[in-house]
């Protein structure tokens, strides 16, 4: 107790070494953990999360038309597909860059709801307006790096790795959906 000679320094170290290391590790882990509030403060805040659902009135949309609504700050494409567009989408072969069936991407075949953000680097694809370029598969075309999407929002050609994302949504009644 009086000095360190009372305990010879062995290969395993003495009690004082243990105390030094233990204290150091304890302080280090504590300091690292105390960083978490700062890091987490940069994540989406409660008010941002609270705005995470949007209701959309579908009644004014005619077959072949599409509207863009904002959900979580991003554009969401709501497209009322024509019979021919549904047919094109469901008859698509399965060897796609990101294979998904059309049925798995819609709740009701007439309505396609996708996030309007190109999965490559986040541009908004063209194709919502009837005069805009819709790409080779008559869906959407991203002007930034030339990705083509089909009438199910699936990537067919270009650098985008994935299909346009389908947000979580449900039909509140025949003419209203709730996204988020």
């Amino acid at each position, binding site marked *: 107790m009086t000095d360190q000679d009372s305990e010879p320094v062995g290969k395993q170290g003495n009690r004082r070494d243990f105390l030094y290391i233990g204290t150091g590790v304890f302080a280090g882990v504590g300091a690292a953990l105390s960083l978490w509030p700062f*890091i987490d403060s*940069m*994540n*989406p*805040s409660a008010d*941002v999360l609270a705005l*995470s659902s949007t209701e959309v009135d579908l009644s004014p949309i005619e077959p072949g038309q599409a509207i*863009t609504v*904002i959900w*979580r*700050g*991003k*554009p969401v494409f709501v497209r009322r597909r024509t019979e021919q567009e549904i047919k094109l989408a469901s008859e698509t072969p399965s060897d796609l860059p990101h294979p998904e069936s059309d049925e798995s991407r819609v709740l009701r075949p007439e309505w396609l709801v996708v996030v309007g*953000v190109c999965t*490559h*680097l*986040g*541009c*908004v694809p063209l194709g919502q307006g009837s005069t805009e370029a819709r790409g080779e598969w008559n869906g959407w075309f*991203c*002007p*930034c*790096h*030339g990705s083509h999407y089909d009438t199910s929002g699936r990537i067919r050609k270009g*650098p985008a*790795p994935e299909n346009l994302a389908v947000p979580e949504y449900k039909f509140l009644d025949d003419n209203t959906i709730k996204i988020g």
Partner: protein
Amino acid sequence: MSANKSNKSSTGRGLVNWIDSRLPVFSYMQKEYGEYPAPKNFNYWWNFGAILTFMLVLMIFTGIFLSMQYTPHVDFAFDSVERIMRDVNYGWLLRYLHANGATFFFIAVYIHIFRGLYYGSYKNPRELLWIFGVLILVLMMATAFMGYVLPWGQMSFWGATVITNLFSAIPLVGDSIVTWLWGGFAVENPTLNRFFSLHFLLPFVILGVVVLHVITLHVSGSNNPLGIDPKGPQDTLPFHPYYTAKDSFGLALWVTIFAAFVFFAPNFFGEPENYIKADPLQTPAQIVPEWYFLPYFAILRSIDFDIWFIDAKLGGVIAMFGSIILLFLVPWLDRSKVRSARFRPIYKWFFWILLLDCLLLGFVGGHPPSDHVFKGIEWLLFIDLGHIGTAWYFFHFLILLPLLGTVEKTKPLPTSITESVLNGDTSSSASAKSGGSM
């Protein structure tokens, strides 16, 4: 402080002496910027340290005054910048100095870096000096990127969207990281706020690293066009007045060119699209970064193929960041003991090819990859040039530099700086002349 007694220029006055004995700031300045023994053979490529210091101070100074007028909120940011341009006294001058200042800061730093590459300024014992320099470059790039977002124009918004989306290429955690960077589910007000905060902070971090850069420089001493060490006082000159004068002259020329752009072509380097307010629903036809990022942007887009399990998107991101990280390793990739390219007949050629390659990549980065380089030539697209340019960039650093260190036959070095300066150094006069164009 007895050592100070011989130091006449910084002593003798009562107040200065009194402070200096308590905080030796005057004797420090005298030692590091008065007497600092600099090789006597600097050429004008050695002006850029002083020019860069000036640019950093200018950017911080104009930036602080701009921040007094700017509002970091998505609803007000664009208008507050327009207000600076139209209503704030001399606001147009502050903003044009700051915007063109970024451009000239990067011109100067790229010249400074290529100066270092040509004269081997990164070699033993200056590796750490070089590493601090590359670190400054990385910090400058982050600062410039975030600063460009602040005016909240179309290019601000979409540039921020594309660049932050790069992180989504990281496997597993990519999307969470992007959401964290944004503070939301898209580039929005939280993103703009944090970018403003960090854009304010980082220049002071740069300033700190610049101090480390200069301290390491003053420990190892400056390199010089011959790349040989000074052998004694006969090979050096005191920094003041010789190089303070030379730096002042170069700086005056530099500021003249800078001012010509600020006053006569302030939007020359700008993008007209950024005078349109950010619209999250409307992507511009072509998103291009500022010119100083174009080579990296070209590398990013040149990886349009999968490499084993790495998909094209992640591959492009790795290549782009790799092209910068590679610079940290240059002191160890270059195996040659000879510093200056004046005495490296093969490296000298590859240096110029690398410079052309970087310019080529910059050219490629400014055009859509699928466009034809020349009208009427079907088989040459910009993406092809991008492939070639990117491949050469990595070939230069990863294969050529290590290889040249062993296969290159270097020219004999002069025995001393003085001999070379006074006699034109017979053994290497030819190479010194041709290298003198650098």
